[in-house]
């Protein structure tokens, strides 16, 4: 397996007592070894639940409805979705995750030491002293001063930036092959954001970890990722390498996103916004999901859903503009 992770035809459902609604539809992507893979999209587009589903962390009422997620584990290629209890051996050891809100992501009533060491307790046979040493070493690596003293403190005594560093330390302590970062900088101050991203880039090199970076912030993508998937309303609408996304985006939605960002620095233009809203409340349009907000929509877009096609090597796009069969209709 040349990729660390292969997501195939993933579907995620919202299951309530009397209905099933598909939130994520037919998502497929691959993350290469030591690659940084970005997933970008507006809130509600399904990027976070996609990340959660990789480690089977979805909870009621969300459920994976179909698909496979192959992972190149120590024990060979496995399908994470079909795993039962064994997935616990993967979680925290081979795949780790950090979350958006560092202030609430740690248990408030255990010390930092307890919470770093907990991961080691699950996955290693080290004794208490070795665990503590390892925890200290990790805290130093994530750039925390006075680590010794901090081990005995509780989450509410620390700042958000500090806690996110600790989250990173917890996530990397077992040297996982894949790190999933779900909006790791969103809840932080701008200056801290940059520090955390630098730290992640640095650690990625020294730990040889692949990263899936989930964000709504194109700046984060530009700074950390090699390959990007753009999510819209539960689907991937464009996937390409980061350079091509910023300089040759194909999908009208991606270009819209880019225009909304780039117009910020330019005072002569007013802020660009994509008109309309993400489809909500379970309503899924018959044709292209972006059709009613798209300024380049054609007749065909209304009633026929486009497919995700490779429009050039390493560049996929879900749009009738790049589909020859669409031109004929």
């Amino acid at each position, binding site marked *: 397996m040349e990729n660390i992770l292969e997501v195939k035809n993933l579907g995620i459902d919202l299951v309530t007592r009397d209905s099933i609604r598909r939130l994520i539809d037919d998502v497929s992507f691959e993350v290469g070894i030591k690659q940084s893979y970005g997933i970008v999209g507006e809130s509600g587009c399904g990027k976070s639940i996609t990340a959660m589903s990789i480690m089977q962390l979805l909870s009621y009422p969300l459920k994976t409805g179909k698909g496979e997620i192959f992972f190149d584990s120590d024990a060979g290629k496995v399908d994470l979705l079909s795993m039962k209890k064994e997935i*616990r051996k993967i*979680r925290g050891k081979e795949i780790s*995750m950090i979350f958006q809100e560092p202030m609430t*992501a740690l*248990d408030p009533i255990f010390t930092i030491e307890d919470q770093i060491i907990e*991961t080691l307790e*699950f996955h290693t046979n080290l004794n208490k002293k070795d665990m503590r040493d390892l925890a200290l070493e990790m805290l130093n690596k994530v750039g925390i001063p006075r680590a010794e003293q901090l081990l005995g403190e509780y989450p509410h005594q620390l700042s958000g930036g500090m806690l996110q560093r600790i989250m990173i330390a917890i996530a990397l302590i077992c040297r996982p092959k894949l790190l999933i970062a779900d909006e790791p900088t969103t809840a932080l101050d701008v200056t801290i954001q940059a520090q955390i991203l630098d730290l992640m880039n640095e650690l990625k090199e020294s730990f040889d970890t692949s990263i899936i970076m989930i964000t709504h912030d194109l700046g984060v993508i530009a700074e950390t990722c090699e390959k990007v998937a753009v999510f819209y309303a539960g689907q991937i609408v464009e996937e390409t390498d980061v350079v091509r996304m910023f300089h040759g985006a194909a999908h009208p939605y991606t270009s819209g996103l880019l225009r909304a960002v780039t117009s910020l620095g330019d005072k002569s233009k007013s802020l660009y916004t994509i008109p309309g809203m993400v489809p909500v409340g379970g309503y899924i349009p018959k044709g292209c999901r972006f059709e009613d907000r798209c300024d380049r929509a054609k007749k065909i877009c209304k009633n026929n859903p486009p497919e995700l096609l490779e429009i050039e090597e390493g560049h996929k796009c879900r749009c009738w503009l790049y589909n020859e069969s669409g031109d004929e209709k």
Partner: protein
Amino acid sequence: MWSYIIKRLLGLIPVLIGISLCIFLVLQLIPGDVISGLLGIEENPELRAQLEKKFGLDQPLYKQYWDWISKAVRGNFGRSFRTDNEIFPEIIARFKITAQLTVMAAVISCLIGIPLGILSAIKRNTWVDGIVRIIALLGVSVPNFASATLLVLFLSLVLNYYPPVGYVGFFNNASVNMKIMILPAIILGTSMSGSVMRMTRSSVLEVLRQDFIKTVRAKGASEKIVIFKHALKNGLIPIITLIGMQIGSLLGGAVVAEQIFSIPGLGLMTLTAINQRDYPVVQGCVLFIAFVYVLVNLIVDILYTYVDPRISYK
């Protein structure tokens, strides 16, 4: 920590003064005077004056209160109208019995309530959850005296079992004592367990919805660790509060169970005194019970610090 405890203890003083004032004033509401009750039909002015003097009833109200309270803080609750015995030692002796009953009931209620509450939370919205919730509802709704009467009825009619009659102290004969105490403890414990179940269920569910549970799962924790180490410990505060309140109210309010099973505890002592219009005893018992209740609540507050590091009392 110690300074916090001392501060809280000092804070109790005005509350206790208020409580004692209330007790004192409420007893002044009694229609007719107490001495007539004691004298019965025989009206003897000489004896009346003698009794009034003995119990200080000839003094003005504020003096009566001061007299009572200044002795009470030194553990002197006066003497009973009826038996002329010292009240305080009697209260302590009876309190020990009630305390034993309360501890047994609390243990039973935790042993039933907490595991079933957790089970109900884990199996939320399944038939298991449904059954546990019905049991909890019954526990909350069935009055002690009804369940006690039905239990005694069932034991005697169906199983032909009669609990030993006449109270025996634990240190005199532990096995007979347990046989006497176990039935009221079961009755009180099961009815307490209903609310413990409900509280455990809702507070565990509340914790399970929080973000950090995802982190714990993402680290590779088993469900056992998630539930017992993280969810339960985080959800403990409301459960402790509830159990503390229940213990507090049982320490004086186990009247019904004590009456049905003839356990000579503090509640029964109070009830008997009320029925006999033995007011110094009523006054003393009620003051003591309120004091214990307030103290138990203080202990619960202090326990919080051990459970939740976010609450600091500096």
